[in-house]
Structure formats: C-alpha cells, structure tokens
C-alpha cells in the first residue's frame, strides 16, 4: 500500500504541491534546473570574489610597478602583469567590482523607474497614459551616445566617474521597461480580481502595488536579468570606446580596451583574454538564470 502511494506521487510530479504559494512552486522548479543552478553558483562566486577583492588581495591596484612590466603568467602573478606592471588577476577582481556594480545599479534604477512610470500609465490610462508614454518615447528616441558624452563632460568632477556612467545610463535606459510594464499591466488589469480589489475598497496605490505588480513581477524579473547582462555589456562597450568608466579605474571594459594596442593584442594575450572570458561567462550565466526564472514562473512547465 505504501509503495503504491509512493509510486503514485512519483508518477504525477506535475501536480502542484498543496499549500505552496506560486513563488514557492517557482523556486522549487528553479532549483531543479541544473543549468540555471550552475549559472547561479558561478555568478555568485564571481560576485563574491569581486566584491571581496580588497580583502582577498593586499596589492595596491593602481601602483605602477616599472620593474614588473608585461610579465607573462607565473606563480607570483597568476595571470601575469600588464604594460604598467599591474597584476592582471587583481585587476580582474577589481574590474568585476566595477562592472558588476554598474550592471546592478543600472538595472536596479532602470527597473524601479520604468516600473513606476509603466504601472501608473497602464493603470490610470487616458491622459496620464498619453503624457507619460509621449515622454517615454522621447527618452527612447534620444541619441544615447551623444548624451552619454555630453553628460559625462557636465557631471565630470561632481560625481565619481563610475556613478556618472550609472546615472547617465539609467536616465536614458528606463523607457523599454516602462513600455513593457505598461503593456503587461494593461492586460492584467482586465482580470476581474482587479475590479474586485476596487470593489472591496483598495486605493489605486494598493491595487497597483498589492494586486497588479505581484502578478507582472515575473515579467519584470526576467527583463531585469536581460538588462543586467545588457548593462554589463554596455559598460564594457562604452569603456572600450573610451566613453565609459574613467581609464584609471579598472573595469572589465577598460581591461579589454587595452587590446586596442596592436602590441598588446598580439603579444600580451594574458591581459585581455581573461576579462573577455569572465565577461562572456558572466553574461551567459545571467542569461541562463533568466531563462531558468522564466521557465520556473511559467505555470505550464513542470520539472
């Protein structure tokens, strides 16, 4: 009898377990997704190593060491040194700090601002919607690179270099999230439970925060992972072009940009291959995590 029940439960893994919130079910599905879990572990290690860099190494990252320029990897310098004699491994850790900070901060600001604008436009509709969406279109059509260069020049000296970049990217970047959230809210608010919420006396702010947002949060989270990856790439791209993080600050993008020097490109691959690999793996793992979350939140998929 017991064996029978056991077998039965094994045969129907698709049935959601009792008493579990939709979030708990999604979490369970995510944990069972090997690729997503491996990616999470990798990303976590990269994050921890990067943010703990000052505690892991005691080397002064900015000091130029003329005696140790352009050394290939050795037991003393695991990934060698660059043209200025700085340890590449240490710079990689510190670079991760900056790149991940830019990625996380931009993603956070963009998601928060985009969600606020999108949900207000979607919920209230009418004139509010028209005004907010025209403004969003304006932001979306702004020449990004020009603005980055100009704002960088204006803000330079007022904020530390990394934060200038974060502010600039975020101010120009929320349009897509706002549009996405608006369209999701527009379709979600057609559900009768929103009418019910109004009927039982919820104020608009409560309808949005307590009823609408939890039900579109899955979309926002998936979008946030895509944004996170995009922002890390954006930082690298802008830094590579020289419009991103100030050159003296190590970031993955700045480390890659040293390969613009043909000599470095050809003869010192140890200085730019590691950041390229870490960058690629980080972005891949973020994308796998995003896919995993999407899958876990899809009520029709069961693992």
């Amino acid at each position, binding site marked *: 009898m017991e064996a029978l029940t056991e077998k039965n439960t094994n045969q129907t893994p698709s049935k959601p377990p009792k*008493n579990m*919130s939709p979030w708990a079910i999604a979490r369970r599905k995510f944990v069972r997704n090997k690729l997503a879990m491996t990616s999470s572990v990798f990303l976590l290690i990269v994050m921890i190593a990067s943010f703990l860099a000052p505690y892991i190494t005691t080397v002064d990252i900015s000091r130029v060491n003329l005696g140790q320029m352009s050394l290939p990897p050795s037991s003393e310098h695991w990934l060698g040194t660059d043209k200025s004699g700085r340890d590449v491994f240490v710079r990689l850790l510190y670079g991760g700090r900056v790149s991940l900070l830019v990625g996380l901060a931009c993603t956070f600001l963009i998601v928060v601002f985009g969600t606020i604008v999108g949900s207000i436009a979607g919920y209230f509709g009418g004139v509010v919607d028209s005004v907010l969406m025209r403004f969003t279109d304006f932001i979306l059509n702004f020449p990004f690179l020009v603005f980055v260069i100009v704002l960088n020049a204006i803000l330079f000296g007022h904020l530390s270099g990394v934060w200038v970049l974060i502010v600039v990217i975020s101010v120009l970047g929320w349009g897509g999230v706002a549009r996405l959230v608006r369209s999701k809210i527009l379709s979600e608010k057609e559900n*009768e439970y929103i*009418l*019910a919420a*109004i*009927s039982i*006396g919820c104020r608009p702010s409560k309808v949005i925060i307590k009823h609408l947002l939890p*039900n579109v949060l899955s979309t926002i989270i998936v979008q946030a992972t895509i944004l996170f990856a995009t922002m890390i790439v954006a930082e690298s791209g802008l830094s590579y072009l020289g419009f991103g993080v100030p050159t003296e600050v190590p970031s993955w993008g700045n480390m890659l940009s040293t390969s613009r020097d043909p000599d470095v490109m050809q003869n010192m691959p140890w200085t730019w291959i590691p950041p390229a690999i870490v960058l690629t793996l980080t972005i891949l793992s973020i994308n796998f995590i995003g896919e995993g979350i999407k899958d876990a939140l899809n009520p029709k998929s069961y693992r």
Partner: protein
Amino acid sequence: MNITINNENSMTAKTKSKKNLLEVKHLKTYYPVKGGFFRRTIGHVKAVDNVSFEIRKGETFGLVGESGCGKSTTGRTILRLLSPTEGQIIFDGNDITNLSGNKLREARKDFQMVFQDPYASLNPMQMVGDIIGEPIKNFYPGKQKKEIKEEVMDLIFRVGLPSDAYYKYAHEFSGGQRQRIGIARALALKPKLIVADEPVSALDVSVQSQVLNLLKELQDEFDLTYLFIAHDLSVVKHMSDRIGVMYLGNLIEVADKHSIYDEPLHPYTQALISAIPEPDPDRKKERIVLQGDVPSPSNPPSGCPFHTRCPMAKEACSEIKPKLKEVKPDHRVACILYD
C-alpha cells in the same frame, strides 16, 4: 379562482410596499471606441442604452438577456466600477452617480459583487485568508489581526469551505469552491446589496445548484438584496422575485417572476420563454425561433432595438423607440403593441 387572485393581489401589495434599495434611472454606459492614427474616440459601444428599474429591499432582481446585451456593464456601473455616461443611480436614498475618491470608497462598503469567472476573479498571489480578510482590513484598519482572522474563519465556515482553506491559494480549489471564496469576500463587509454576475455559469451543472442554494441561504441570514445576472432563464426563475429582460443595452420588460413566465408581453421575452425546454409534454408550446443576428451595440438600429428580428414588427417600429411603460400592475414593457 377568486382566492388565487386575492392572494396575488395581496402579494403584489406586499412587495410594492417595500422600500427601494436601489433605483436606476435612464442609465447609459458607453465604451469609447478608439481608432485612427491619434487614437481618438471614433465611436461608442452602447453597452447600456437607457435602463431604468428599481430593486426593493430584501428581494432578488433577476437580469436576463443574451450574452453581450450589457448585463455585466449594467451591474458594474451600478456598483460604480464603471462610470455611467448618463443617468442616475440612487442607492439607499443616496445619489451615488457622481461620487468619487474617498466618498465612493466609503460607499462601497454597502454594495459588493460576486464575479462570473471563478479563475480570473481571485488574485493568484494571495492566500485565501488574505483574499477574504482584505475588505475588512481596508475599511477597519485599526482592527486587531486576531479579530480579523476570527471573522474570516467564520466566513470560511459559513460558505462551506474546508477549515484549512485559510492558508491555501486559489489554484488549489475547484471552480465551485473558488466561487465560495468570492462569495465570502463579498460578504465580509456585510453589504446591503450584492450583484451576482452569472455566478454559476462557469461551473459544472452538478455544482451550480449548491452555489445557488448557498446564495439563497445567505440572503435570509444576512438580509441581503441581490441583483442576480444570468443568461439562463431557468436559473433566474429559481432565484428571482422580479425579473428584468435586456436586449441590446435596453431593458425591454420588467415584472414579477410569475408574470414574466406565465404572460410575457414583449415579443422578445415570449421568444425567450418559448425556448425553455418544457419538461411536461402536454404543456408544450410552439417555439418562436428568432431570425437574424443581434445587431452591433456600436451601431444599434433606429427605433425599437428589437425590430430587426421581431416577428410582429410594424413599420412604425423602425421609427419610434418605445418607452418602458406600466401596462399592468407592476408589469412594465417597452413595445409599441401595448401603447
């Protein structure tokens, strides 16, 4: 024979003497149709186009009509979940047509809704206990958590849900049980009026009567007045005291249940009644089959809305829109035949 007539008269007198809880006067609710490059309003769906009726304290008023004739829109407008385009809604002596903001929110305590779709009407992210307790939290923010939970448990018990429902989520329940959750939520504020919008049309037939019986029991217990919406005449017959028949946004006949079933006046009502399957073969009446389709509410026909399909239509029907008039005691109809 005499006795029956007397009885009927006295009953009519009794229901008539009751006070009105709700009065709806010339209600119109139009949905704007947007189109073109600038998304301007290019027309209107006249979902509710002149509806007047009243609901008396303690009765069940049944609203019937084919799908798409504007029943839900009427119900939602009455509860001010939609704003009327024109007309007046008087609830318990107060004009609620133009209330807004906190005044409207405060007024909502007295009228609640049970929705049609047992799946879409419950927030999938909330526990059942929170769903039922939320109206209480909204209106009595000072109330102790423990007290609210006790009230919610009472409601869970009263609507016949299992006692462990409190910590579960809606997806763990069947359609019938979900409808019970929706009923408990509507009941939580002890409202005077409940609009039940086709509360059983999405349920299995075997479950329908259980939910209907629950609604009837609750009506006695909590002194409720119902606006009961349905597209199915047999369900309405079971539930209602008086019945209003809608066609294409218009209320075309209003009378007590027996008059509607035994002597329907409007040709549309007659057709609806004739379409009910008759269990007794001896009483079989001829079925009136309507020709054509229901016209679009964004471009309703001139004159009487029903004249395009009416088997008794005259020329004048396409010109004059008949008004709802009392042609017998407590029996109103909007048809040129009774002018």
